[in-house]
C-alpha cells in the first residue's frame, strides 16, 4: 500500500481512477479486473439449477427429439439411448441400483432433469459442444425422457412444464455421511501384532490378465509408421502435416487414423483421399452419404469439411465444420499421410 501516495501524485492519473482506487483500497481491494458486461455474463452464465432457474424460454417434442438424437447423439449413445461400446447408456436400468452391476442412466439414476438439460446444452454433442439451439436441447431431453418410459410419445418438454417431470431416483441420494458411518469407528489405535490368525491369498490380478502391456514400444511403432508414410509422400509439406495433426484434434473424438485404427462413431480415415465416398467397410453411413457418388477428392473433402451438413444434408457427422481454409488444407495434408 505504500505506493498509494505516489499514485495520487501521478499527474497522468485520471481523477476517477484515483477515486476508484481509494474505494477499492478502503475495502482491501486492489482495483484489478474490470466490470463484467451483461452480455458477457449472459454468454457464459448458462448453468441451470434444479429448480429450473436459468432455463430459457423454449420447447421441443419427443418426435423432433428422436430425429435430433439420431443425427447428433446416436453414434455414441445408440438409436434408443442404449449406449454404443463403452459410451454411456442414457436409458434403462430402472431398479438396478442395488444390483451387482447397477445400470446408471438419466432415468434410473439422475436426480434432477435440470442436470440433463444443462449438460446437453453445455457439453454435447461430444466434440461439437454448444451447437444445439435451446429448442433442440428441449427436444433431445424430451426424447431421452421418452426412451426411459418417463413420458409418452406425444410429449412436448418446455420451460413451463419442466418441473412437472418426476425423476425416479430423485430421493436416491444422501449427503456424505462418512463422518458418522466410518470415521467414528476407524479412528482407533491400530493393531500391531497378532492382528489375525491366518492370511491367505484370495484373489490375484494375474488371473484376470487385464493389465496393459507396456505401450512404450507400441507408441514407437506408430511413430515410425507415420514417418515412413510421410517420407513416401515428399510432395506434402511437413509443417502443413504437423499443423493438420493439430486440427485433427477436433476430429479425433470420432475418427481414428493410423495403424490399428477402428471405426468409432465415425469411420476410419486411412486412405480417405481418392477413396469412394462412404466406402469404409463396416461403417453404417447416413443415407445421404451412402447414396452419394464419386470419390473424396481434395475439393470434395474441402466442401464437406467446410459445412458438413450443408454439403451432405442428413450426414450423421455432428461436426459444425472448419471455418478456416488453412485448417482444411492442413488437415487434408495430414490425412494424406495415412495410406
Amino acid at each position, binding site marked *: 500500500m505504500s505506493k498509494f501516495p505516489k499514485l495520487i501524485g501521478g499527474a497522468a492519473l485520471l481523477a476517477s481512477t484515483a477515486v476508484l482506487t481509494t474505494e477499492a483500497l478502503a*475495502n482491501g481491494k*486492489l482495483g*484489478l*479486473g*474490470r*466490470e*463484467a458486461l451483461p452480455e*458477457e*455474463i449472459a454468454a*457464459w*452464465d448458462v*448453468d441451470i439449477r*434444479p429448480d429450473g432457474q436459468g432455463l430459457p424460454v423454449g420447447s421441443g417434442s419427443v418426435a423432433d427429439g428422436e430425429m435430433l438424437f439420431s443425427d447428433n447423439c446416436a453414434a*455414441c449413445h445408440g438409436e434408443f439411448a442404449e449406449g454404443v*461400446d*463403452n*459410451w454411456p447408456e442414457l436409458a434403462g436400468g430402472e431398479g438396478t*441400483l*442395488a444390483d*451387482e*452391476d*447397477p445400470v446408471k442412466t438419466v432415468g434410473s*439414476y*439422475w436426480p434432477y432433469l*435440470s*442436470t440433463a438439460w444443462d*449438460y446437453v446444452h*453445455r*457439453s454435447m454433442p461430444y*466434440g461439437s*459442444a*454448444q451447437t444445439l439451439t435451446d429448442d433442440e436441447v428441449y427436444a433431445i431431453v424430451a426424447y431421452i425422457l421418452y426412451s426411459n418410459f418417463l413420458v409418452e410419445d406425444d410429449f412436448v418438454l418446455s420451460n413451463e412444464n419442466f418441473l412437472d417431470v418426476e425423476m425416479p431416483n430423485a430421493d*436416491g*441420494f*444422501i*449427503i*456424505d455421511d*462418512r463422518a458418522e458411518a466410518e*470415521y467414528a469407528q*476407524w*479412528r482407533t489405535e*491400530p493393531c500391531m*501384532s*497378532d*492382528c489375525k490368525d491366518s492370511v*491367505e*491369498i*484370495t*484373489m*490375484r*490380478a*494375474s488371473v484376470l490378465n*487385464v*493389465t*496393459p502391456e*507396456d505401450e*512404450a514400444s507400441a507408441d514407437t511403432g506408430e511413430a515410425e509408421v507415420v514417418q515412413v508414410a510421410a517420407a513416401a509422400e515428399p510432395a506434402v509439406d511437413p509443417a502443413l502435416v504437423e499443423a493438420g495433426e493439430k486440427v485433427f*484434434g477436433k476430429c*479425433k*473424438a470420432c475418427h481414428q487414423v493410423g495403424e490399428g485404427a477402428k471405426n468409432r462413431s465415425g469411420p476410419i480415415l486411412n486412405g480417405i483421399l481418392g477413396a469412394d465416398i462412404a466406402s469404409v467397410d463396416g461403417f453404417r453411413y447416413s443415407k445421404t452419404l451412402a447414396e452419394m457418388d464419386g470419390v473424396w477428392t481434395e475439393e470434395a473433402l474441402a466442401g464437406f469439411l467446410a459445412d458438413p451438413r450443408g454439403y451432405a444434408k442428413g450426414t450423421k457427422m455432428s461436426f459444425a465444420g472448419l471455418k478456416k481454409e488453412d485448417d482444411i488444407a492442413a488437415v487434408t495434408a495430414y490425412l494424406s499421410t495415412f495410406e
Partner: protein
Amino acid sequence: TPDPLITEIQPWAQVFGDGVDATPYGLPIEYESDVIRRNVEWLTADTTSSINFTPIHALDGTITPQGCAFERHHSGAIELRKQDYRLMVNGLVDTPLVFTYDDLERFPRENHVYFCECAANTGMEWAGAQLNGAQFTHGMIHNMEYTGVSLRTILNEAGLGAAGDLADKWVYVEGADASSNGRSIPMEKALDDVLVAFKANGEALRKEHGYPVRLVVPGWEGNLWVKWLRRIEVMDGPVESREETSKYTDTLEDGTSRKWTWVMDAKSVITSPSPQAPITHGHGSLVITGLAWSGHGAITRVDVSKDGGVTWETARLAKPGEKMALTRFYLDTEWNGEEMLLQARAMDETGYVQPTKDQLREVRGENSIYHNNCIQTWHVMPNGEAENVEVS
C-alpha cells in the same frame, strides 16, 4: 575379477558430451524412457474423455514432475493462450468482474504443495485385485508445488456483500473447454484454502493440467480442481451438475448413493517393491518405500506389514507429514528371498486409520466406484517379482 567398467577407459571418459543448449528444454535421458504416463485402454471409450496414470512405481521423493503427472480430461486438453484467457466472477457479488491473465499475476501470491487425487483412484479394485501395478491401482495422483492467488482474495475483489450470510452460499466453478466441467463448492471451503493457480513446480502449468489457470482444492477430489478455469459464480445453492450427480457420487450396497463426498480420506501404497518395480538386486538390504496422504490434514504415521496384516512395523517418514500433501515413507529392511505380503497403512492427524478392503466393503458394498482408500497388498515372490493380490 576386475570390473572392465573401471579398468578400461570408457568412451564417456574420453570424448565430449553434449554442449549446453543441446536441449534448451530438457527431457529425461533415454534410459528413463519407461517412466511415463500410461492409460488402460478398456477403461474408457476414447482418449479425449479418459484418464492416464502417474508412474508412481518409478518415482521417489514427493514432488511429481509435470511431464509424468496423470491427466484426466472430459473433452481433451485444450490449447488456450494467456492473451485469450479471461476469468469471470459473477453471481451474488457486489461487482461482477472479468480478469485477464496479467490481472491474476498482480494479486498477492501464495505457494503450497498439495496432492491432487482423482476420486476414482483405485476404483477398479472394488470387486477384487484387478490391475497389476501401483501405477494402475494408485497412479491417479500427483503432488505439486502450486503458485497462485487464494480464491478468497479474488472473491473479495468482486465483493461478497451482495451474498449476505455466507454460511449457506456456494461457488460454482467451470472450465473453458468443451466439457466445461462445472462443480459446486461450499463457500466455507472456497474461503478457506482454495487456490487459483498458474504455476506448478515453479513453471507454467502444462496444457494437460489446465494451462494457463486451474483451480486447486486441497484435500478434495480431483474433479473439483477445474482446469482452464474461466468462471466463478457465487450462488445460493449447488448447481447439481452432471459431474456432481451422474458422476462422482458413490452408490452404496442398498442402491442409495452418497453425494458431496469431496474429501479424500487417508491412504497409502507401497510403490517399491511392487508389480512394476520388482526386487532385482538379490538378497540382503532392501528399501521398502511408498506414499501416504490424507485430505483431512497431515500424515502422522505409516505402518508396513510384510505378512498380510498379521504384524506391523512403523515406517520412517522422509519428512514430517504436510497438510494435504504426499508424504514419502521408507522401511529400511532385509530380504532373503522369503515370500512377502506387503501392505502399508496410513494414519493422519485426525487419528483416522486407513481401512482394509473388507472394512470398506462392509459399509459401502462394491459399487461405490469412487473413494476406494483401502489397504493394498502386493505379493512378493522368492524371485523378487510382485503381484497385486487380495488376502483374507
